[in-house]
């Protein structure tokens, strides 16, 4: 498959760009934050997005989706990154639907995916327990009890925890924290007794939260995938999530970068445009090169997923590592090159820097991904 967007994809990208610039620009995020909005995103907007098919963009047609693949989802996320648009696309489509589609039974798919595709059901994943992403370190215990399992423990950084309808919880059913084997995935209703949710106000003003499970009872029928076999599903879903988050990071980096280049062309200091300073020019040109590499990696890894290639994990790890590195650098340089104004809350650049760091850390940041990339390469 050529490493280039086809006409349909180009159209999707430009229509998403237009829609988001109008309906979900940075000012919308700012308003959600300043209003301390209860949902943290606009439900009306999510309805519009769903009507356009975005909630089902990567879901197979058989289950009510558009089946545009993850290249399609990535294009939308890239544009959302540019505008810092907020929606449950990451929690419920990028992760939730992918989980069900990869690991769920036929019954799960039939009942859940069409509702997700319509935007009427939000499914999220509760995975991380400690300070850092480390799926194999899952320790939250699920103890068998008759036909049920009893779950107790705490999860953090659960996207849209406070508004999700269903939560897939990764729990340990055998072995010890650190073993890849012995992790199982349970589909819980968010209103299940014993499950409590706490919204956390994050640095990026988004909607991650904590989920506490206190003797929650789940039926074996609510297992996603095989007992003890959760890791294989998680790996596939996490590869998808990291490639998609890389697309979002690409969009926000491009936006921050382009705004900075524009600023260099307008701002004067010492009687000349600061864009005429060669030291800034060279830093800008070098970042341009890095961003071109990022574009190639994002597209290549999303295509690898859609084509079912056998190097998806390696590509996803490489892409996320690269995007973490470049997004961090570009957002830092954007603030530095803007000078004092870049430090003010009134100006938008801070939002880009904040979102970048959270998206970087989500499902493993630079150090996690570079280590994984090296290990997958056998060294």
């Amino acid at each position, binding site marked *: 498959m050529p490493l280039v967007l086809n006409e349909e994809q180009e159209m999707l990208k430009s229509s998403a760009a237009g829609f988001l610039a109008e309906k979900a620009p940075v000012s919308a995020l700012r308003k959600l934050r300043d209003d301390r909005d209860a949902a943290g995103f606009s439900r009306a907007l999510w309805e519009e997005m769903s009507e356009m098919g975005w909630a089902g963009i990567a879901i197979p047609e058989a289950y009510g989706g558009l089946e545009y693949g993850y290249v399609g989802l990535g294009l939308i996320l890239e544009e959302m990154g540019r505008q810092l648009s907020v929606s449950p696309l990451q929690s419920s489509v990028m992760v939730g639907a992918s989980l069900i589609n990869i690991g769920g039974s036929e019954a799960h798919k039939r009942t859940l995916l069409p509702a997700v595709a319509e935007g009427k059901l939000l499914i999220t994943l509760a995975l*991380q327990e*400690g*300070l*850092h*992403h480390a799926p194999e370190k899952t320790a939250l215990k699920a103890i068998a009890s008759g036909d049920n399992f009893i779950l107790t423990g705490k999860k*953090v*950084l659960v996207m849209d925890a406070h508004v999700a309808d269903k939560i897939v919880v990764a729990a340990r059913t055998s072995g010890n924290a650190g073993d890849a084997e012995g992790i199982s995935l349970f589909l819980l209703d968010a209103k299940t007794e014993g499950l409590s949710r706490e919204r*956390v*106000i*994050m*640095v*990026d*003003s988004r909607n*991650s939260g904590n989920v506490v499970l206190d003797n929650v009872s789940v039926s074996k029928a609510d297992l996603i995938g095989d007992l003890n076999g959760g890791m294989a599903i998680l790996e596939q879903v996490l590869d998808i999530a990291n490639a998609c988050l890389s697309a979002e990071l690409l969009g926000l980096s491009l936006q921050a970068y382009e705004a900075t280049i524009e600023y260099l062309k307008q*701002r004067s*200091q*010492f*009687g000349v445009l600061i864009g005429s*300073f060669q*030291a*800034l020019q060279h830093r800008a040109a070098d970042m341009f090169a890095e961003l071109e590499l990022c574009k190639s990696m994002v597209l290549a890894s999303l295509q690898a997923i859609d084509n079912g290639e056998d190097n998806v994990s390696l590509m996803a790890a490489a892409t996320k590592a690269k995007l973490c590195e470049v997004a*961090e650098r570009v957002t*830092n340089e954007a*603030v*530095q090159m803007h*000078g*004092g104004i*870049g*430090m*003010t*809350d*009134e100006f938008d*650049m*801070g939002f880009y*820097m*904040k979102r970048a*760091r*959270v998206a970087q*850390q989500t499902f493993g*940041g*630079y*150090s*996690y991904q*570079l*280590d994984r990339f090296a290990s997958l390469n056998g060294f």
Partner: protein
Amino acid sequence: MPDLEQFRADTRSWLEENCPETMRQPMMDESDMVGGGRKPTFKHPDQKLWMERMAAKGWTVPTWPKQYGGGGLDKHEAKILREEMSSLQCRAPLQGMGISMLGPALLEYGSEAQKLQHLPKIANGDIWWCQGYSEPGAGSDLASLQTKAEEKDDYFLVNGSKVWTSGADKADWIFCLVRTDNSGSKHHGISFLLFDMTSPGVSVKPILLISGRSPFCETFFDDVKVPKENLMGEQDKGWSIAKYLLTHEREMISGFGRGASKKFCETAVEAIGLEHGRLADPVLRNDIAKLELNILAFAKTMERVGDETKSGKGLGAASSIFKYYGTELNKTRCELMIDVNGEQAMGWEGDNYAGGHFSRTWLRSKGNSIEGGTSEVQLNIIAKRVLGL
């Protein structure tokens, strides 16, 4: 030097007796700092006690002459006081622009009347000072300032505005660069004025930063009358005072790179753990090792420059790197602090996230390489003045 040994012993026992236990804890953030002023705020009554006790001995400003409220210590005694305070972990009793910036400038450029009027009040924490330097749109090009001071009978009429005025919403007085002549080069015609922030025509608007805090303000002057005796130094020649203070400021800010009581790598080991004796995150380990190495090398360089100065070699060229290197190092440290603390560092508020301590400290650090002369300006200065390029 038996006298110095005696001084050390006396100092230590006085500190042990007089420094309250609560004032021997590390400061958590800016709210633990004591700034004094007409309407001082004390988070804890011991802060007031400690400030007053130290002020009574002149030790809020140990090296200032006694007649101006200082401690009259020579550099050897001052070093001993610093060392003993550090070994007992005593907090600084009083901080702010008055002590660190205006005071030294007054001692150098002020008239006797100005010294007697202002220095004791700074030393006692009676007056909180702020600095009026940067202007909207001027940025790094400080000398292009436009705030106008017209010479009238016995006063200057000041109009214009300043930005990035640190703590202007709490300050009692301001030291301020204004333009008294527009006809020559941009470095000529700048004057240095001191005036009361309660003067009619002064208004202040805090600037909300990306860290969610407002340490800086915009400050507006609308027909503010400043008595002529409040001019410090010569009229139109204030740029030399400005440069003197900029150097001072850079040395202060470069200190951001120092002073963490616990080594960064110890925090990392607690947060991440070891595997086969090495930090369990092999990539982060590398970055932390580089950071620790540079923190060590930077500290040794400050020590070396200090020792060279003491041995009479003057302030060497190495001091020109402090602002640049120290602030860049601190930014790197804060980025790694985010990585090390992971989920905890993503929080913005709430008790579980210490009110967003990590994320806000990280965001605030981004300003270090902008305020007080950007890193780019520092590199220009090194290239031109030190390297002769």
